[in-house]
């Protein structure tokens, strides 16, 4: 028995127009979710380091729950589970964005906490000694420095979340993987199509890496 399977470049290229419609969905879910997750992360990250103990508590709970459960379970819970509670369906796009938001939000909370806590105590003291209020010291002195240190881990989280959206094919959002599956169902060219799907993810994540590197270089002035 002889199997001679060759990579069919023509089939790979033929799949491109069928995969491209998935890209806007992948981008919308990942960047929409990340944008919301960023604000969730700032909120819970700052709560997490509040001097008031009962404010820290809900932040710890949120982070532990959504960092400690798989994002696939989270999106299934939102898409199939929540409608039973709410009494009405949730569309797949909303469920996907929500899952990325709460999941990345938990990780970004820790990024924010780490960034703020990494700023030397003397920075805050210098600000306070000049008469700045605590919130002014945070806004003008601590946050700008912390944010610069947060850029690399935020980039990491961005790339992870983009890839996480591939799981949402299970709830039928028409993102990249889903488009690939639909196309393969009629052409049986799994090797070529998943190869192209992988390349497209790589194109997206690589662009993000380059953009972040530029941002970081710009932000490093004077550091």
């Amino acid at each position, binding site marked *: 028995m002889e199997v001679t399977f060759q990579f069919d470049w023509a089939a790979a290229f033929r799949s491109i127009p069928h995969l491209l419609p998935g890209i806007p969905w992948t981008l919308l879910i990942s960047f929409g979710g990340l944008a919301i997750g960023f604000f969730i992360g700032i909120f819970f990250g700052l709560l997490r380091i509040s001097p008031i103990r009962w404010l820290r508590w809900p932040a710890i709970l949120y982070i532990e729950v959504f960092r400690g459960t798989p994002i696939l379970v989270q999106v299934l819970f939102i898409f199939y589970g929540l409608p039973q509670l709410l009494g009405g369906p949730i569309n797949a796009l909303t469920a996907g964005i929500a899952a990325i938001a709460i999941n990345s939000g938990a990780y970004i909370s820790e990024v924010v906490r780490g960034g703020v806590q990494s700023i030397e105590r003397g920075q805050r003291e*210098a600000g306070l000694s000049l008469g700045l209020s605590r919130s002014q010291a945070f806004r003008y002195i601590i946050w700008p420095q912390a944010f610069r240190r947060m850029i690399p881990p935020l980039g990491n989280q961005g790339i992870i979340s983009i890839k996480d959206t591939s799981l949402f094919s299970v709830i039928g959002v028409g993102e990249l993987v889903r488009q690939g599956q639909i196309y393969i169902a009629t052409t049986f060219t799994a090797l070529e199509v998943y190869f192209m799907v992988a390349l497209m993810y790589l194109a997206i994540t690589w662009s993000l890496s380059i953009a972040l590197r530029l941002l970081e270089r710009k932000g490093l002035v004077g550091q």
Partner: protein
Amino acid sequence: MTESVSNPIVRMAKVNKHFGSLHVLKDIDLQVKPGEVVVVIGASGSGKSTLIRCINGLEEFQEGHIEVDGNELLPDGRSSKALQRIRTEVGMVFQQFNLFPHLSVLDNVTLAPMKVRGWNRADAVKTGERLLDRVGISDQAIKYPSQLSGGQQQRVALARALAMEPRLMLFDEPTSALDPEMIGEVLDAMRELAREGMTMIIVTHEMGFAREVADRVIFIHQGQILEEAPPADLFDNPRHERTQSFLSRVLKH
């Protein structure tokens, strides 16, 4: 404490600070008059930095009274309004400079006058440039702190504090983190400030500088003020045995 003629700008009475089981400051009584230069000396860990950090509320204390320019600080940090007023009137220079690394030298100096005093940018810049010129770094205004030497950074820190037009300046070992060849330039700037009549409380190990500039030297040991006297008296005729042994150790080399 005999000099009650002119109103003291700093008045500390029976100040006690505990840090867990550690008794960091013990019954500190200290008065500083406007225009006076007071140098605080003592071994490391004696509480001298803690003492001056209590004056602008960077450290809390548990018992006693601290009054700065008529604003009273309460124990356990229970005095936010008075504290805010005190901090706008009291400047501080730190051992590690603590310049803001994300801001240019000029922005370091103009930030507080604009945000706290509400000055417009033009006024803040004018004052900032004048102060940078005074400490000899006007040509570095657009650079970032990391591009300056330690001595230059500390002089920027001095200009930054002076930009708030303080009535009192606190110095927490301002030359301890500097390379030896840069200590002189910082002490020169402080010397000039003292000559202009600024009220200063200085924690330092520079005994020659203390002798020359101080009106009064305070020796602190294990959280207690053991001796205070004009520099000539304290350095040449220390009364307390602890002061003698401390001075013999630091003056020997």
